[in-house]
């Protein structure tokens, strides 16, 4: 077994654009689920809209990088509004069904060959990062140390993603601690009670859906920023990975989703290297190394079940504030 490469893979997952993109998506979902109580199972759809919003506005419309990010945010906001108008009146479980369907619709539309020139269909989109790379302040060379060593472009993506994440986390932290945050937490508890106090519940739910959607959409844009966008990236399993990260960290917190995303990816990378290596060394009986690699998803699934039962509030959450079994 190559202990060294297992360690390097694991350590790299600690600071990678994918981890940061997941943290963003989990952060957006924390607003939806943790603070307003919207059961959004379409987070992959929001990420896809954000990612393709960025890629398409760069490739098809020739937007500069910053305008492409704005377009990406606008696209996720629009997606949130379109999704919200019919569904926010629905009860929580119905919203879950509709959002999961909406995310699949987005993915299948992207997969369709009808707009192949714009979306690239199953091949996806590539080579849209030139303008973003052109403003890279870091000269060519290798950055970092030990397992964390990057090319100038990789380093720039990483730093940029970290800045976006920090800004988003700060913004949401401010929001949930404000009177606005109090209203949305009230809606999570009982929307009729909040309505009886003169608050426009629909408007607040919509605002929260849009804010969380934009953050998750930006996560999608960061997810594809380093290389390419492909509809297969945004399959339903992505939604459940984000949910796992969120519940792991703590749904009704701002720091929790960040921690959850890091733990999730570090664990994924660790098991993804360790299990095949163990299979190769004959420690897992008849399992081939490919089968062993897939075993990590089983383990992650078990982890999710254990968290929900043993620690429903997540690692950093307040036990009293968010549990799944009420009363």
């Amino acid at each position, binding site marked *: 077994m190559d202990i060294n490469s297992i360690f390097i893979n694991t350590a790299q997952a600690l600071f990678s654009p994918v981890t940061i993109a997941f943290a963003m998506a989990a952060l957006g979902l924390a607003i939806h689920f943790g603070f307003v109580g919207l059961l959004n199972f379409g987070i992959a759809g929001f990420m896809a809209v954000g990612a393709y919003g960025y890629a398409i506005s760069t490739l098809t419309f020739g937007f500069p990088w910053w305008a492409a990010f704005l377009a990406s945010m606008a696209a996720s906001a629009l997606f949130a509004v379109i999704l919200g108008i019919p569904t926010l009146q629905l009860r929580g479980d119905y919203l879950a069904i509709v959002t999961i369907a909406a995310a699949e619709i987005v993915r299948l539309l992207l997969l369709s060959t009808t707009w192949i020139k714009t979306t690239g269909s199953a091949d996806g989109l590539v080579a849209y990062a030139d303008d973003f790379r052109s403003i890279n302040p870091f000269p060519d060379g290798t950055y970092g140390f030990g397992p964390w060593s990057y090319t100038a472009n990789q380093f720039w993506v990483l730093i940029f993603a970290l800045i976006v994440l920090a800004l988003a986390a700060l913004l949401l932290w401010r929001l949930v601690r404000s009177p606005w945050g109090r209203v949305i937490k009230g809606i999570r508890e009982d929307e009729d*009670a909040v309505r009886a106090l003169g608050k426009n519940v629909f408007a607040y739910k919509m605002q929260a859906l849009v804010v969380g959607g934009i953050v998750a959409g930006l996560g999608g844009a960061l997810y594809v920023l380093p290389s390419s966008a492909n509809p297969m990236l945004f399959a339903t399993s992505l939604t459940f990975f984000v949910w796992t990260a969120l519940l792991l960290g703590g749904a009704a917190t701002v720091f929790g989703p960040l921690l959850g995303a890091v733990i999730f990816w570090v664990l994924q990378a660790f098991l993804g290297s360790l299990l095949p290596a163990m299979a190769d060394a004959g420690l897992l009986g008849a399992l081939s190394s490919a089968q062993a690699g897939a075993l990590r998803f089983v383990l992650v699934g078990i982890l999710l079940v254990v968290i929900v039962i043993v620690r429903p509030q997540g690692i950093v959450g307040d036990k009293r504030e968010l549990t799944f079994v009420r009363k």
Partner: protein
Amino acid sequence: MSGSKPLKRTPQKSTGLHIGDASPGVKKVDPILVADHVSRKFGGLVAVDVEHVEIPRGAITALIGPNGAGKTTLFNLLTGFDKPDTGTWSFSGKDLAGVPAHKVAKMGQVRTFQLTKALGLLTVLENMKLGAKDQTGESLFQSIFPFLWKKQEAEIEERALEILERFKLLKLKDDFAASLSGGQRKLLEMARALMTKPTLVMLDEPMAGVNPALTESLLEHILDLKTEGMTVLFVEHDMHMVRHIADWVIVMAEGRIIAEGPPEDVMKDEAVVDAYLGSHQDVDLGVVTGRITLPKGEK
């Protein structure tokens, strides 16, 4: 038994609220809420069918009636939580038909719920602060900049603490509302409603599930509302309470208003006694069901 204990003070009853004879739909001297032809059907069941009703301003009005009489449905309709099939109604002269619940509350007509809706995973103080109206910090964009709302927030907190003090909930202010007892939640819900600075307070069964010791203080608080110039409309089953604090009583049965008047008169009304206690209250149950035949000459 709740209400059997005498109150610390004898409530000052408001009289002379109506014009003409006290009958269903009677005109009031100064109505705050007027409803006409309000009806609501659930499938084939007519839950509410009210021709005309006026709620007197500055008084405590009780809405009574047997289970299923349509009291809560009428509450829901008047507060915008449910939409009637027909009807118009106005609050302080402003038309309310079709106005959504949150706007009704903003106009000063606040309600509580039969099943208490304390926001369990917010603290008692947060519950209270949520009640305050017109908060700058509740706007999405302004909420990010605390300097825009810190001052208002401090004022709201001060008012919230005052009211909590009055409702004897002050020492619980940092507890999650979920940890409160049923009676304390009723108190919190009423206190939170006061944070909206209402003119009409509508209480749906404020005494349900409240122990006798708390009943007394709840009654005191309801009387206080009137002293402070608010109008109270409440649904209640406890006749002692109704008799004690209500200035006016409206009786519903099967969706209709069957009687109105000052409590002592309404309680004697035959229709009310029928509706509430059943028309065979003085007859053996066996006679009613036909299992026993009484000797001739006896009723």
